[in-house]
């Protein structure tokens, strides 16, 4: 009688549970893998975007460079696994705003349709401005970085739209 109990009352429910357990586990692992892969790709794009922004600023930020506008078409993918991504940025000062300190541009990319984000920060000088409400759209024909150097030395950055 004890053997029958073990076999039919405990083992069979466990085996039935495995029918559900295996696909659930496999699904969870695959979701984790896919999310990680997308996150890595998005972070790579964010890193590239930030690095490009910083290099454009460094190139323009010298007295020998005359006023004008520069547009940089970015070498980043328009889609990550079929999903486009959007970017926003905010500019903040490193110290108290009254101190005229260097500025930090925080760039956030979001994968559309899934809740995945990546951020990067770029250190810039005090003579930089960021165009409010400027949005980066990865699959846009005009996905780029714009930098406008003004005659007073101010460099105004924005995403191409």
């Amino acid at each position, binding site marked *: 009688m004890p*053997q*029958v109990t*073990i*076999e039919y009352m405990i*083992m069979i429910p*466990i*085996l039935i549970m*495995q029918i559900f*357990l*295996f696909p659930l*586990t496999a699904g969870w*692992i695959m979701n*984790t*893998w896919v999310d*990680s*892969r997308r*996150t*890595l790709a998005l*972070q*790579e*794009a*964010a*890193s*590239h*975007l*930030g*690095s490009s922004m*910083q*290099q454009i600023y*460094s190139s323009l*930020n*010298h007295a*020998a460079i005359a006023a004008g506008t520069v547009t940089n078409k970015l070498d980043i993918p328009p889609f990550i696994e079929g999903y486009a991504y959007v970017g926003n940025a905010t500019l903040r000062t*490193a*110290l108290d705003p009254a*101190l*005229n*300190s*260097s500025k*930090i541009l925080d*760039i956030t990319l979001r994968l559309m349709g899934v809740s995945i984000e*990546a*951020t*990067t*920060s*770029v*250190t810039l*000088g*005090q003579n930089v401005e960021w165009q409010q409400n400027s949005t980066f759209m990865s699959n846009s024909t005009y996905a780029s970085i714009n930098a406008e150097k003004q005659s007073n030395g101010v460099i105004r950055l924005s995403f191409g739209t």
Partner: protein
Amino acid sequence: MEHRERVNLTASTIDHLVAVTVFLAATLLFIGLFNQTIQTAVIYQRHRAIATKASDLLDTMLLSPGIPVNWGQTDSNLTGFGLQDPEFTQYRISPYSLMRLRSSVGEPVYYNATGQYYSNVTMGDRNFMLVPYNLALDYSYVTRLLGINNTYGFQLTLTPVVSVSIQETQFANSSATFNVTAAGVGFPLSYTTISYCFLKVDSSGPDSPSYDISFGTVNADDTGSVSINIDNVAADDSYAFIAYARLSGLVGMGYHERTNDHEQYVVPFIDSFEEGRVLLAHSYNVHVDETETEATVFYTATYVLLTEDFILREMPIITEKEHVVYGYGTNQTFGNLTIPTHNPGILVIPYKTTGTNRDGVVLMPWGISSLAFPVVFGGDPQKQEWVATDIRQVIVGGIAYQAKLALWSLEGYQVNG
């Protein structure tokens, strides 16, 4: 018959138990290995992101002069970090901005008379660069200026590319022979031009210490070496030998000194970058030792700089002897002098002590490159999980340096771009 049935049931149960256990173990093993693969990919990406950040950050430091642009030559606080020389473009670094970085390796020096700690870069016995903490930039403040506080840590090091070694090889008939060898990283600087300055301390006259100074230019052989003979040098003379080597725009420097007093000397403290003011203290007042008796050190001072056409030139600062004392109830006193230029050079302070007539010479760089002092600024990369490094070849005050940035994340396994 009953007995046989019971045996079959038991065997079947064991089969089930083993099969289920093996299956669960295999599932757990699979999850573990898969997670490990994902983690490896995440960490790889994280390391890549840190490497990109290191490159960007190094350019931010080296390609911007900071705010205000001439902060290295002033005593003002800065609000934007950058090391570029404001008079140049590209990777030309200000030798004064580098002086204002608080050294990560030297033990800080406390000077009682000013009540301040000093960032300490000391090379050899008598070559000092002591910068007060209120003028030397703190690492944590710089991370705030760069916007990486609590996210990244870094260490910035600058080391000279060209080494110029000087050895006294022979001493006979009141003359000394010096062997000067210039080398890059793993190769000699063949046929390099070497400009040198020899300063000998004279402590015999009533107005001593005075000094005799001579200059010269020679060419090295194919191994980058040359022998230089200096006349009128006695066995117990104190001197400083300074040499610059240049080859096709690559410039390095080296120095060698001999001193015959190892106890008392003058310690120079930078007091103001803006005014070029340097405080001079008796060594006993700095390295406090209450057992010492009263003592006086006499000194003069001169400034040696390399001109744009690579000729060494002297600019006397104190020609009449002055003194600093220890004891006599006045151990809070110090002398001071003003360096009248912002062209990088070397402050040379010949000195002699009372009674024993022992003398020596102290060197201090004005502009860190003039004595090719290395720079180590920032945190300690030794205990970090993973460190990305990037390098640039830069020019600091005309001297070739290599700038290296080591960067690490402070955010654990979270990946930031």
